[in-house]
């Protein structure tokens, strides 16, 4: 009997370790992009703007690899497209329990290059993330996840739109484009 119990506990512990080590890959999703860095970011930005009826605005475009370059080192290029919708942020920010989720605002999509020369898109698994915070948050985050999926639908027949260099921080910094969060 003791053996069975020990085995059971060991099994659960093992599952825990495996789960803990792979949790990251559930929370983030990586997609390969058919375009280069700038074009991928620009197409995502254009898609975000098409979703303005759901409150979406661009709130920033950042290049964290530039900061590394300024410190004297090299990393492949990375662009962070930031967007926000007050339709969703409003609900979360109004709730004492959910307000801590503001840590994830604005919604960020990362576009980066790897050694293989290909461009990748990284997103948060918003739907899964939301489920960790109760029903109300889950409902909001499910909507965010749906919209996010729309951002990544590319129409190849459209010409490459120009990259919009939104100043981060939102508000007045980037004009009406950057009204974000």
């Amino acid at each position, binding site marked *: 009997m003791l053996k069975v119990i020990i085995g059971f506990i060991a099994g659960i512990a093992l599952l825990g370790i495996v789960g803990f080590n792979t949790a990251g890959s559930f929370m983030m999703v990586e997609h390969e992009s058919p375009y280069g860095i700038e074009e991928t970011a620009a197409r995502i930005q254009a898609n975000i703007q098409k979703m303005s009826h759901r409150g979406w605005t661009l709130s920033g475009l950042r290049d964290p690899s530039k900061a590394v370059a300024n410190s004297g080192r090299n990393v492949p290029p990375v662009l962070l497209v930031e967007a926000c919708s007050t339709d969703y942020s409003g609900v979360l920010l109004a709730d004492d329990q959910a307000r801590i989720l503001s840590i994830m605002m604005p919604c960020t999509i990362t576009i980066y290059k790897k*050694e293989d020369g290909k461009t990748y898109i990284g997103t948060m698994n918003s739907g899964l993330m939301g489920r960790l915070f109760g029903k109300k948050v889950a409902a909001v985050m499910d909507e965010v996840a749906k919209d996010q999926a729309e951002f990544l639908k590319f129409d190849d027949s459209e010409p490459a739109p120009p*990259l919009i260099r939104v100043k981060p921080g939102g508000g007045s910094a980037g004009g009406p484009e950057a009204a974000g969060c």
Partner: protein
Amino acid sequence: MFTKDQLIAPVLGIAIAMALLVATPAGATAPPAVAEPVAEKSKSTADHSKFEELDINFKSGPEVTQACLKCHTEAAKQIHKTKHWSWEYTNPVTGQKLGKKNVINNFCTSVTSNNSFCSACHIGYGWADDSFDFTSEANVDCIVCHDTTGNYKKLPGLSGHPNYETMEWPPHSGKFRPPTDLKKIAQNVGPTSRKTCGTCHFRGGGGDAVKHGDLDSSLENPGRYLDVHMDSEGLNFSCSRCHVTDEHEVSGSRYAVTAADEKGVLIPGSQDTRNPTTCVACHGNTPHPDKMAKLNDHTRKLACQTCHIPAYARSTLQTKMSWDWSTAGKLDEQGHRIQLKNSAGKVVYDSKKGNFTYDRYVVPEYQWFNGEVKFTLFGDKVSDDEVVKINDFQGDADDPDARIWPVRVFRGKQMYDKGLQTLAVMHTAGEDDAAFWGNYDWDKAMEWGMRAAGSEYSGELGFVSTEMSWPITHMVSPKEDALGCESCHTDGGRLAGIEGIYLPARDRMPLIDTIGFGLALLALIGVLIHGGIRVILAKREG
């Protein structure tokens, strides 16, 4: 009587012209916003602004040169002997006649018949056609290399001259460049710099970052990340620090590359005539400290650049990756030139030139290279069944002079004369009715170009896929960013395509592995069965 419209037009024209005349001297149409560099105190023993010879309102470049030559009496004669002047080079090994004058590349393709544009990057004045006098000393352009003001610009179409009158630039842009202030420029001459060399070498192929991949305007003031030697807040090397120059002959040519130098450090003052423009000339062949001795072994097979330049075009500037001429010439419904841009603002289609692609932070391709390059020249047989190598890098694993080099391969599709089976010389630029960029007539442009190259166009235009290789040697990254072992010592790593060497972790004999692991597995199964039987028997016996 004149109609109202007929009257308005000339009046308006005069008014605009007057407005321009008034506005120009006041600087309303200032030159491109080049910030005046904070004048570092010159260490020279001569202050050129104090020379009477230069206190003249020069009317043209050659006048400035004549003033320079009053003191620097031998300078023009020295320039006359260089590739910068002749645009010619005969490879002593292959005997091929190279140089910009002879080579057909897969960018703008060829200089022949397009001199007045291409000579914007010639170290001289007036090379418009074959009548150019290569013996003229006054035609040498001293300023383009020795300017320190940043306001000297030779414009395409002016045969190597800067503008002496107010001129709309870029064409049809509505922006105007005031006349070049030659006096001020002449009084401020100084040593060459990354900026002066960069006026041509950062902008080859028709624009910034286009041609080399490892040379672009981000190197005017690079950070440490981009190039440890040129780091403007660190070592701050000028080009001539490595491209050691003697009698105006600049060392380190792409036409005759030193791919490997087993002799090691080139001590200053030695009578050795080796190429000083190599990593080895300063760092030697065993540059790594003892605790990294294994890396020193690698210099037998690898060029330094292979590990120390992990990627090129590492600033935010995109470099051109391909150029397809075959789509050129499409016009919009009004018959106007089309230009399409990508998300970063780079032109991806131009009626004049066809389609382009771009990239940045590009991982090079790798190949054996012994320094010898074979070009496909005008007249050499080509066909569209195969990719034509504009320049073929020689060498293999068994060649003691060969090393594995990082290479930028620029891919293109360009004009060739199908009848003559040769790469084409086409007349692209010019103010006449044949130049492709003004008329979009392939046959006329081909006829003119081929004739200028001494041939008769067969009338059959074709497009052939081409590859041009560029050794990657600039943009040396900090040592912390050099490639690690795993970049190559792995399956499918960076050197996956390199033949002729055994590379641990990439190479193995699959049969030996199968047999080895197979027998080990059998042994394991054998002992498990044997042990299992023992355990079962022991249990039965209780």
